């Protein structure tokens, strides 16, 4: 799941300062699950901003709407009626949703209400941990199912480095050494020999700009 955190409200207040009527758009996908951008948080942020602006003698009208997923155009179409009424949008979706909703309504300014943090797992209520960086070239088969790109602070493909002390990373005592975790798991499943295998450098070159993914077998010809 994509994990995001709420942006400091003073930043959001700056963004919407010139506007009198704003839509706060929530998303029922990842940001609802990570308790940052669902209907509840939309209501809380709206109330907070209304009060802040009221206090400054510059009242603002805020519409609230939450739809299924802001990373799908069909769901974004549902915001039309409200978008037409407002001067700007604050989206509480992830970075993808914010941009994609903005693309749907190009003449209305759109602002981020959250900071998108990571692809993570929900460890317990209110706790998330990063597990994947979407590198696009998965090596989990070689590393005992533990991602070195994410779990090693240096994203080393062949570790550990000298900063690994008693299973802890030198970066922080709260960060376990990713390569120690890999070593322990490989030894548990009897695949320690994989530690000897040199994993070649990944191709990080993004000469073609943002990544796209097309499956010819699924694309639809609507002509």
């Amino acid at each position, binding site marked *: 799941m994509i994990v995001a955190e709420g942006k*400091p*409200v*003073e930043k959001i*207040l700056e963004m919407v300062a010139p506007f009198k009527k704003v839509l706060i758009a929530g998303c*029922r*996908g990842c940001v*609802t*699950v*990570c*308790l*940052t951008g*669902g*209907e*509840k*948080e939309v*209501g*809380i942020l709206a*109330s*907070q*901003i*209304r*009060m*802040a602006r*009221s*206090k400054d003698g510059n*009242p603002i009208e805020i519409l609230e709407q*939450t739809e*299924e*997923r802001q990373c799908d155009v069909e769901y974004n179409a549902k915001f039309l009626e409200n978008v037409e009424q407002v001067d700007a949008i604050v989206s509480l979706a992830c970075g993808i949703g914010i941009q994609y909703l903005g693309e749907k309504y190009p003449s209305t300014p759109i602002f981020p209400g959250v900071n998108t943090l990571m692809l993570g797992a*929900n460890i*317990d*209520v209110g706790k998330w941990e990063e597990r994947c960086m979407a590198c696009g070239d998965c090596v989990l088969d070689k590393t005992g199912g533990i991602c070195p790109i994410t779990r090693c602070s240096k994203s080393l493909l062949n570790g550990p480095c000298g900063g690994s002390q008693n299973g802890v990373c030198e970066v922080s005592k709260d960060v376990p050494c990713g390569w120690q975790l890999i070593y322990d798991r490989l030894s548990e499943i009897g695949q320690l020999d994989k530690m000897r295998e040199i994993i070649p450098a990944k191709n990080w070159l993004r000469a073609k700009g943002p990544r796209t993914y097309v499956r010819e077998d699924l694309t639809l010809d609507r002509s």
Partner: protein
Amino acid sequence: MTITNIRIGIYLCDCDGKVSKKVDLSKVKTAIQSQAEFEYIREADVVCGTAEQEKVAAEIDKYSLNRLLIVGCNDPFITRKFLQLAEEKDISRYNVEFIDLSAVDSVEAAVSAINSTLGKLHLRAEIGYEELAVTPDVLVIGSGSEAAAVAKAISKNQPVVQIDHETTRVVEVDGFPGSFTVRLLENGKTIKQSFGAIVLALGAQPQYDANKYGGVNLDERILSLSQFIKTDKSYTGKKVAFVLGKADADSLLSFAAVLKAALDLKDKGASEVDVIYDDMKVCADNLEQEYELARKKGVNFLKYDGEFQINSTSAGATFQYREPFLPIDATRVAADYLVLAEDFVPAAATQELAEILDIRTGPGGFFQKDNVHFLPIKSNRAYILFVGSCHGPIHGTDLYNEIEAVVAEVSAFAKGKAQVPSLQPRVEAKKCAVCLTCYRCCPHHAIEIVHDAEYDNMYNSAARMNPLACQRCGVCAGECPGKAIQLPLYSDQEILFEIKQPAKIVAYACENSGYLASEFAKTLDPQLQKDLQIVEVPCSGKIDVIYLLKALEYGADGVMLLVCHKENCKYVWGNNRAEQRKERAQALLNQVGLGDRIEFVHVAANQGNQFNAAVKEMAEKIRQSGTNPGKVVK
């Protein structure tokens, strides 16, 4: 929750002329008629009279009324009569409201009270009764005398399976009260069986702790109490001394066991029986009687104080101590056998079963939180019950009372069906992101994620609250990030309607503490509540961050949360969640410079004075911060 076809009947009762002395009811009627939505309204002299009741019954039919608002008084006699009438007419008791006008002295106040209740009646979800099929069978876990006693008592009403959790072990428990699916492991084979309720009766484990006796180890002359009880050796002509008070200082178990053993020894011809104690504890059942009897039969009771010394040889053991009342330095008791009391610790399987069953342990690692609401037999999960020393050493009458309580509780399932009002939260599947937040935050393990093609969301799944497991605290609704969960009678709509035009201070009050304290406080200082609006919630865990903000947005100057004392929440951690939400809401206010406007108060139902002190403090806080500059004027 959308509710359709609401047809409200309003009866303005003059209470035999009492009301019209202060309030002109025809003016009230005209005012209500001009603005409110309802189906039927009329005045009556004494609406609770028999003839009137018949008339009301006919009107319910004639106008197809399905909700009633009785304005006049809320005398228990009258409320009972109307609820009976409603039941006859198939109107849920949750759709009948009463307004007491005895303290109201103006048309405006009466109209405002009526409009407020009318608004809530409009927003109220339909609450029916569900009849559920349940398994009458009860699983008793434990092998001692306590387990046997409770199993025998339950078996008079319904089937019981008793397992020891050794030869037959509980591996997994799934499902909800009325139909727990228990996976049992027996002789390497797994069996699945359905049980309506589960009773834990593991007993407690005696444990000798040498440190309590100056490092003395047990040997053939020095025995622990449990060793002594287990051996059926003859002590005829022998001298036996018991030592009490060093271990198991808090319960009566050792005292009771020693008195019984002492009497038994005397009967069987022991030459001398001494009971050496520091404080004699006889405050239960027949213990004092047994103590008197033991004295009569010649058992010696010797009081010691502080330091002592124990020695043993192959021929006997001695206990040397200071007698607190006699002017001598040391007294020595020599006996053939010295028997030492032991501590009681939780049975070995306690922690394992707590994890399997998702129930909490408390002081000393025994089952059950140290929380008065769970006494005597309840866990945090409905129909998973404790009996006997597995939740702290108990004895005698206490045990029998617990067994009685357990029998009464599980008998609800004896007939194979159970009827419950559908008061559990409702989930709007369209808004449910199946995020598991409610599932994880539920203190009662009452929520499941259910897949159903009918569910109108991308997962075809949604959370569902089990009506027998759910205890209606509303913690889940307060957590839901998608606002998919609504608790009947306390939906967001109903609560936000209540605070639409708030008083200066809005106080969200738990019905188990703060609300009751407010009622008491009103009698102590009625004037103080002039600017205070109490909003009743089933548990402070229902108080949402948005409720706190909205009260201020709508115009209140301050908000209070009146919650149960720490470790004393009826719903385990509702008050802790409330405190966390208060912290967040206050941080949100600080971020936009609205100041310190939220007060979190632990209060008990009987703390009217503390309640008033807290209100005064809040008023002072507001006086210092000034009126709320964030209120949004429409």
